[in-house]
């Protein structure tokens, strides 16, 4: 009997400033599974959606970067908790998106959850590991602390729709940055579902802004945007990388270059992705009575 029930199909929208708008352009594009069968229509974000997302990310920056590291750690851990509760759903979406076997999908989802946990634990260690009391030759106390770079535009990996995405977004957040993410172009659905998790965990609106659509269309706008401080080119089309880097040079953005081929995201990361989006601030003060 239940076989005859028509399922309620989900509408996949963008995630900007804590809300789920459609693209202002009204455009959408069909998303298929690995075998080419239709899965859903995804919003096809425009340059104006990208612009709005940058505004939202900038607005959220003060609060997120100013939160205590302990608080950010708790929020990121909360994301892991929420994801854990929706393991099955994500496994199904990853299976559909990436065409991997169910067991493989499950291990990718588990790794994604664990990655949030790993980065959640980093928030309040970074200053100790990357900062320093500088033993300068004079009567000064000098210390250096890592600070978030600002608004990061992230071109998410194209192949790994969830684990890859989490592996690039979580370090950006752990450092205190906010971001505009362009999800995998052909596998965007787990990214939007992840956005639903972020929206219902304690991540403040605007801290992560998720765009779906054509990476090659959106990337140049983000790369040249004057209020974007850094660019993660992980999922950039190879043919576009040099152009994007040139555009980024216009405002001296920090650029994280793409790997030659997408890495095995199951490997435990190092802190390179954290460091890539952190600045070092050095403070001096005289020591005297």
């Amino acid at each position: 009997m239940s076989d005859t029930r028509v399922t309620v199909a989900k509408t996949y929208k963008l995630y900007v400033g804590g809300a789920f708008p459609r693209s202002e352009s009204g455009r959408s594009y069909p998303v298929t599974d690995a075998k080419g069968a239709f899965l859903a229509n995804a919003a096809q974000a425009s340059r104006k959606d990208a612009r709005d997302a940058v505004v939202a990310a900038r607005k959220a920056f003060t609060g997120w970067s100013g939160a205590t590291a302990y608080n950010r750690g708790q929020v990121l851990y909360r994301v892991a908790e929420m994801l854990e509760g929706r393991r099955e759903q994500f496994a199904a979406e990853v299976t559909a998106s990436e065409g991997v076997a169910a067991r493989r999908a499950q291990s990718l989802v588990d790794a994604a959850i664990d990655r949030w946990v790993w980065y959640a634990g980093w928030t309040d260690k970074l200053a100790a590991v990357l900062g320093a009391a500088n033993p300068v030759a004079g009567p000064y106390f000098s210390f250096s602390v890592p600070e978030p770079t600002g608004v990061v535009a992230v071109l998410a990996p194209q192949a790994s729709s969830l684990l890859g995405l989490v592996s690039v977004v979580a370090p950006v957040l752990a450092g205190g940055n906010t971001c505009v993410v362009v999800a995998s172009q052909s596998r965007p659905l787990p990214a939007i579902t992840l956005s639903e998790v972020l929206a219902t965990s304690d991540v403040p609106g605007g801290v992560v802004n998720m765009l779906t659509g054509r990476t090659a269309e959106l990337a140049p706008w983000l790369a040249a945007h004057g209020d974007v401080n850094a660019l993660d080119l992980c999922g950039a089309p190879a043919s576009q990388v040099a152009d994007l880097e040139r555009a980024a040079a216009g405002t001296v953005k920090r650029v994280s270059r793409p790997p030659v081929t997408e890495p095995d995201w199951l490997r435990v990361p190092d802190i390179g992705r954290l460091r890539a989006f952190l600045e070092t601030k050095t403070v001096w003060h005289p020591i005297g009575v």
Partner: protein
Amino acid sequence: MTVWEYAPAPESRDIANLKASYRMFVDGQFVDGTAEPLKTINPATGEVLAEVSTASTADVDKAVKAARRAYERTWGKMPGAERAKYLFRIARMIAERARELAVLESLDNGKPIRESRDVDVPTASAHFFYHAGWADKLGYAGYGPDPKPLGVAGQVIPWNFPLLMAAWKIAPALACGNTVVLKPAETTPLTALVLADICQQADLPPGVVNVLPGAGDVGAALVRHPDLDKVAFTGSTEVGKQIQSALAGTGRKLTLELGGKAANVVFDDAPLDQAVEGIVNGIFFNQGHVCCAGSRLLVAESVADELLAKLRARITTLRVGDPLDKNTDVGAINSADQLAKIQSLVASGEDEGADRWTSPCPLPDKGFFFAPTVFSGVSQAMRIAREEIFGPVLSVLTFRTPDEAVAKANNTPYGLSAGVWTEKGSRILAMASRLRAGVVWANTFNRFDPAAPFGGYQESGFGREGGRAGLEAYLDV
């Protein structure tokens, strides 16, 4: 009233061992360049100091090849403990030849001998000493147990701290196991070539350090050379952007240390006399040719008049003149071009309605000099509040609340340095965290140390120099 004129107290220029001509340093030898030689002049007098050979693209290629060979055959494979001993040697030799280097630097650059003697040269030596110690301890630096060098680094440095910038670039590169090709600035090539001579005296293996004098075209050719693994540049934001753009898609690692427009924020509870010193040191140190110069003074309205009066009185005591005179506080502007740029920005300040005050100090009648100048009544919209003047010109703005101070201080695409003056501890920490700058000096200004990372936010560049953080620029991590 009594007038006490200090008699001239010039350092002897003979100490500089100035030679009629200098040659580039490639593969351990001083050789002629195949491009047109340049003449480097003394900006305090306009006289030609020496002829310096410059590099052609073929010379750039030769130098990069030499650096590659040295990297592959000797330096890259050498145990860190051995590399360290070379760097320690260089540090010591800089100290031994400190007086010669200081006089030569002042001759070629125009900076006061007091600064080249007390700041540039000792700090350059300290950079080598500091980084020498890292060479065999890189595994403890937080980049993994056995971080690897990148290979060959192309380094381009500016004219404002010629020797010190060479040290900032070469010391960490060598400590991490890289070899380098360094291009000093067109107007100030001499001390880098003496540093090359020191490398030779220290018996540094040939090709580990190569020095190619020349103008911007040599730098452009160097940073675009396809066989580099790393490019490091200190200079203007404009050129930094060109380099970042040129390196797009190459995968070559890049660090940039660019311009700035630092705010020096003075609260009403500041130690005023020391704030005046800090402001003076912030903008008139090295004639204001400092990327991290405190060129925008943001002062609380309630103490603005008192502070400005003290500031003007203090600036009036600055002695502008012969860089070799031990009593000179402000030396020569490095070049005619730079002087013209300063004059044009100062003219824009007057045109835009800011109030100009210039020290009544006498100026020498030859050479390039500019009297210390303060603009008050400056608003954020004026060019003198936004553009890097790179000269002894201070723009004064006022604020009423800490929020306004932060908003004005951060209202710039730059983010290299900032200053804050207040005796309230909690306010210092709040300001330090809110000011968007790579270096924040609280109740002091323009302090540098090899152990303290230095570098910018935003359009002031990326990457750090100094400290543990500075090693990242020269490691494959």
